[in-house]
């Protein structure tokens, strides 16, 4: 409360954060729409592959199970936190395919001769992963803003009580 001289300052800051939160919500929804577009295109290309190669060529039966030997993800996230806002942020890390370090290429689960449609599907999902990281970052900011709004509302109420 000591940070603010009067209620006008609190209201001004609240307005700014409300506006910023609305912009972040808009950004998140538009990222989600883009993810939807990409996954739909990806799904369509998975369907094309099934049509050309057979219905069971791209399915959960090709995915590794608990009985398979361990392997590591080609895409991981690096977590950082912003000093100023103390907000957690994520960045995508890509690892090269390397059998010695158990970084295997997942496209090989679906056969040796890789159809073009499966390669296109992979590209679409890779972009969707990038956008997912972007969305996660935006949502961290939204959650942080909600926390800040709650605190500012409390301070605003204290000022209102003093004024009464």
């Amino acid at each position: 409360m000591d940070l603010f001289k009067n209620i006008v300052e609190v209201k001004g800051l609240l307005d700014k954060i409300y506006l910023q939160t609305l912009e972040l919500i808009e950004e998140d929804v538009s990222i989600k729409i883009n993810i939807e577009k990409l996954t739909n295109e990806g799904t369509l290309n998975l369907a094309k592959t099934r049509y050309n190669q057979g219905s069971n060529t791209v399915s959960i039966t090709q995915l590794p199970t608990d009985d398979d030997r361990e392997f590591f993800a080609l895409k991981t996230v690096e977590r950082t936190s912003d000093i100023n806002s103390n907000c957690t942020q994520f960045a995508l890390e890509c690892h090269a395919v390397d059998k010695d370090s158990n970084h295997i290429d997942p496209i090989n689960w679906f056969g040796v001769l890789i159809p073009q449609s499966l390669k296109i599907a992979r590209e679409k999902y890779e972009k969707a992963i990038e956008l997912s990281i972007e969305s996660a970052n935006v949502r961290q900011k939204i959650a942080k803003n909600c926390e800040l709004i709650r605190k500012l509302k409390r301070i605003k109420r204290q000022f209102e009580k003093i004024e009464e």
Partner: protein
Amino acid sequence: MALHSAIKGKLLSVIGDEDTCVGFLLGGVGEINKNRHPNFMVVDKNTAVSEIEDCFKRFVKRDDIDIILINQNCAELIRHVIDAHTSPVPAILEIPSKDHPYDPTKDSILRRAKGMFSAEDLK
């Protein structure tokens, strides 16, 4: 932007239908660790809600997972568990699936944010 305290190599996990899991694993997020625990779960029409809930809770507890991608229709089935998760990590991301387009009004974080905008507060 000032950044610090980098922690490397955390995972994205996936809970969703066949195409979502196949697609995102094809994109390279899949992993089976030393304890033979996968970071994905395929949900079909025969999967019980309790199984999805248990898997979600297991992923939340794992310290090597930073982001959980879950189809919004699966998230709807375990909404109470997702709503109760308020920690920033792991981040929960509700994604659309081929049969269920994204609906922002169902999203936990966006509903929480919407709750901040009451007419009383905007006076």
